[in-house]
């Protein structure tokens, strides 16, 4: 079975390079596995008890890696063996080997797939699109929802108060710059409620309009639309991947920048894959803001919000060296995981780096990396990169995160100073925050990027542009005299 699980049928020509990519990634994983270890040497006092064991049992027992989940250190293992009778020692080792055998997949015992009911008459009912002929004829283009000349959304809550577009034809006819689309996928490993992320972001508002820092109004400079929500199968991340990718791709193919509002972070897989579909392999780098590295390997499930980047790598869409990561601070990965990231070429920036060097320093380093090779940039923003005090409503919060005053400028600058072709904001779980703050901070992050994209259109791409009028009241020459 192919390891490319969620790809579109019509992408089969890419197969060759994917096989190559799969080979290179898994070889490295293999090498890591096979790193030699020093066998445990048992004290003479255990000799008679161990003499009864078979060579296979002895080999297992001598491996620190294999025995550490039963006894953390060789000393504790000796203790465990000392206190057991010879019969118990045999049973003890047999039990460890039994557990090891249970752990991995075994043909005949375990199912390698989850069956679906293909007889269901509604198998695809969740994603079949509404034909245009169902509604009264209308000209293609964004649909204005407002009743009044004074602006505003007219009461219907949409992303950024924008008009609605439903088809690629609407995007083309409206010369749309940014299409904001919801993807309410809700399969996170922590608290779940990310399916309500798009809803709360529409209700909250604050995603566009005038930006105080730059005096740029994204709603005025850009054609922004609400592209509705992408259909999701809430019982299967796997089944949702292909359709999300199709919709993100159809947005990008019109030249519009897709803004995807999640939904959990599994979405990074179809989002990035879709943009690689459109812009070609090797033409995209990705910056991933997150408390977690999301390069989980070795899961029984091919996709989840803990492993979208690994899946992108294995399926050959992107390489580790295409990635910048900012804000990492969760318990994983361990040291070996960080080493693996280095080997794969990831440019990671943990909160430990921020603690050592300060945010301004890290910000400049990240910006120069992002600008580095002049490639197109995709931004994947997991709101848990922010501190839980600003974003209580997220499924896997981690203490010690970034502040909005750190995150907003870097996002605004990235979107102004680099060629950003896509953006996602994921893991907003509103049920966890009865206040408005999670939604408001999330909207501010999205607005920072919309503002940046508008600045770029206005050619305000110089490093760290801020509007001169707003940074100084100019009643004196204070800054000139004091700086």
């Amino acid at each position, binding site marked *: 079975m192919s390891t490319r*699980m969620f790809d579109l*049928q019509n992408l089969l020509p890419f197969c060759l390079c994917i096989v190559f990519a799969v080979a290179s990634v898994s070889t490295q994983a293999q090498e890591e596995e096979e790193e030699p270890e020093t066998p445990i040497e048992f004290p003479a006092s255990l000799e008679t008890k161990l003499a009864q064991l078979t060579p296979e049992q002895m080999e297992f027992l001598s491996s620190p890696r294999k025995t550490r989940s*039963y*006894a953390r250190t060789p000393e504790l293992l000796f203790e*465990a063996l000392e206190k057991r009778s010879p019969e*118990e020692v045999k049973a*003890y080792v047999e*039990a*460890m080997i*039994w*557990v090891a055998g*249970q*752990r*991995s*997949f075994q*043909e005949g015992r*375990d*199912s*390698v*797939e*989850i*069956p*679906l*009911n*293909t*007889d*269901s*008459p*509604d*198998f*695809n*009912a969740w994603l*079949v*699109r509404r*034909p245009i*002929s*169902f509604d009264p004829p209308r000209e293609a283009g964004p649909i204005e929802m407002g009743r009044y000349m004074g602006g505003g959304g007219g009461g219907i809550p949409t992303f950024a108060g924008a008009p609605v577009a439903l088809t690629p034809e609407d995007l083309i006819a409206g010369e749309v710059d940014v299409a904001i689309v919801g993807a309410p996928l*809700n*399969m996170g*490993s922590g*608290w*779940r*409620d990310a*399916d309500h992320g798009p809803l709360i972001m529409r209700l909250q508002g604050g995603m566009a309009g005038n930006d105080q820092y730059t005096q740029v109004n994204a709603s005025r400079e850009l054609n922004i639309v609400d592209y509705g929500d992408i259909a999701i199968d*809430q*019982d*299967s*991340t*796997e*089944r949702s991947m*292909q359709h999300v990718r199709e919709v993100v791709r159809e947005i990008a193919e019109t030249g519009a920048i897709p803004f995807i509002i999640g939904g959990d972070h599994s979405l990074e897989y179809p989002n990035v894959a879709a943009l690689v579909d459109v812009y070609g392999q090797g033409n995209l780098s990705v910056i991933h803001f997150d408390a977690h590295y999301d390069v989980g390997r*070795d*899961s*029984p*499930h*091919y996709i*989840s919000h803990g492993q979208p980047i690994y899946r992108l790598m294995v399926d050959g869409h992107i390489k580790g060296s295409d990635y910048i990561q900012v804000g990492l601070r969760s318990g994983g990965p361990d040291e070996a995981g960080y080493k693996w990231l280095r080997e794969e070429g990831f440019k990671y920036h943990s909160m430990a780096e921020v603690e050592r060097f300060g945010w301004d320093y890290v910000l400049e380093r990240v910006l120069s990396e992002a600008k580095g090779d002049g490639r197109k940039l995709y931004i994947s923003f997991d709101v848990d990169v922010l501190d839980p005090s600003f974003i209580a409503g997220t499924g896997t919060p981690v203490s010690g995160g970034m502040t909005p005053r750190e995150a907003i400028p870097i996002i605004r600058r990235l979107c102004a100073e680099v060629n950003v072709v896509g953006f996602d904001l994921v893991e907003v779980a509103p*049920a*966890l925050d*009865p206040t408005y703050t999670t939604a408001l901070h999330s909207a501010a992050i999205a607005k920072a990027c919309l503002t940046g994209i508008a600045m770029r259109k206005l050619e305000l791409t110089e490093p760290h542009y801020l509007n001169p009028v707003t940074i100084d009241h100019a009643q004196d020459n204070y800054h000139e005299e004091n700086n």
Partner: protein
Amino acid sequence: MSEIYKKYPAIVVAVSVLLSGCVVQDGSQNTAQSAWPNTAPGFMQERAEVEISASVMEKLSTLTEAQRAFLRSSDPLRVIASREKLNEEIERRDAQQLQRYVSDMMSAVAAFAYQPDSDMGVIPLNPEATGFNSYKILKPTILNTRSRSPGPFSVSRYINQWGGIPTFAGAKVAITPEDLVAGNVDIAIAGIPQSMSSGNRDARNGPKALRAMHGIADRNVFSLVDPHTVLNIVDYGDFSVDRMAIARSVEHIRDMIFDLSSTGAVPFLVGGDHSVMYPTVKGVRDANPEQPLTVVHFGAHYNAERTRAHELSDRDAVFKLLQEEIINGENLIQVGLRGPQASIESFQWMREQGILYHTMAEVELRGWDVVMNRVLNEAKATDNPVYISFDVSVMDMAELTAAGRASPGGLTVRELAPLVRRFCAETDIAGFEIMDMAPMLDFTYVSALNANYMMNACLTGIAMRKLGMSQENYLNPITVDHGQ
């Protein structure tokens, strides 16, 4: 025939008549309505006379026979809400628009079905994962660092512990079936933290929230029975699940409950979303295969959808139990239905299965006391052990905000507690579960306290039965009257 059914058949007939191009007068008449119309006539039999405008007739004549046949079938109702609305859509289109409309409708409906060339027919798993089964491997006793004799053990430091390590009902902990046997355990309370609800998802934290809240085994004022003094109750920990796929959890949950039930202990299970009702009931049933089981399902939703692409979810757990004949319809009682999930066809199907359903509409019409007694009598009449599957959505949201699939207009604590207590006192309880408690939805303690109160009602009932207080609606004389 009651008022509620009148509009629907008229609509069906209006268009079917229109499409067949002739006017039909059906002879069937309203049948006298019985008090409990379990065998009432079908909903579709009523007929009405419909006038068809000449313009619509002409438009329909431009369609192909296949298109007309499609419109005559029930398929259009999969993409449009009603026949009446379909009729309007036909009316407002010219012949050319109608051609396009019908052919688009047919394509949409055709696309609903599984497409072997482009659809994933199964969800693939990664057999190379070194921890493919890690979530469900039970620890062999020999691997314990230290030995202990089987039997429930206390995690309290004090004789009268207040607070401390949270367990269900403040009970001792048991880990293995041997512990249950050695402790002669009556009630084993276990958590099943599956979180795949079709509503709000946080049921994985249900067991945590209920362990952290008191009240499960408090002395009960109605009977003055203290469950802990009568029953051996333990916290049996959580059953491990694959949080990404209910399908990968089913077998393990079933096995754990089978082992639990086989010791003779009564399982008290804390979900978890309601999909796990399938393996829980299966486990209890399998532990005693010769003995049919009556299931009393409290909930706002009927959970018996029949055509979903996924083999199991909270929306079809009941259907799966019936389909696999783990229980049969005559032994299934549903109480508190009011969610939008069940359509008129669903109710018709439930009647065909013999399911004894009780909606909030019935409560509105007859009053709770009537319905409560009817439900109890139905369960007693089956003469089977009773398994209670209690979805917290049956309760009113004001009293249980943290329901994953909340629905307004539910039953109150003061309506439910007596029924649950009486069930557990007056029938032989094979198991009890409380499902779809999603604590993050309630920032107060109220949902957790009320959920535990429901468990208390059942534990009290079981204790009452053990003490011989199983006569109809027993209440302790000393608490119902000060006697001055």
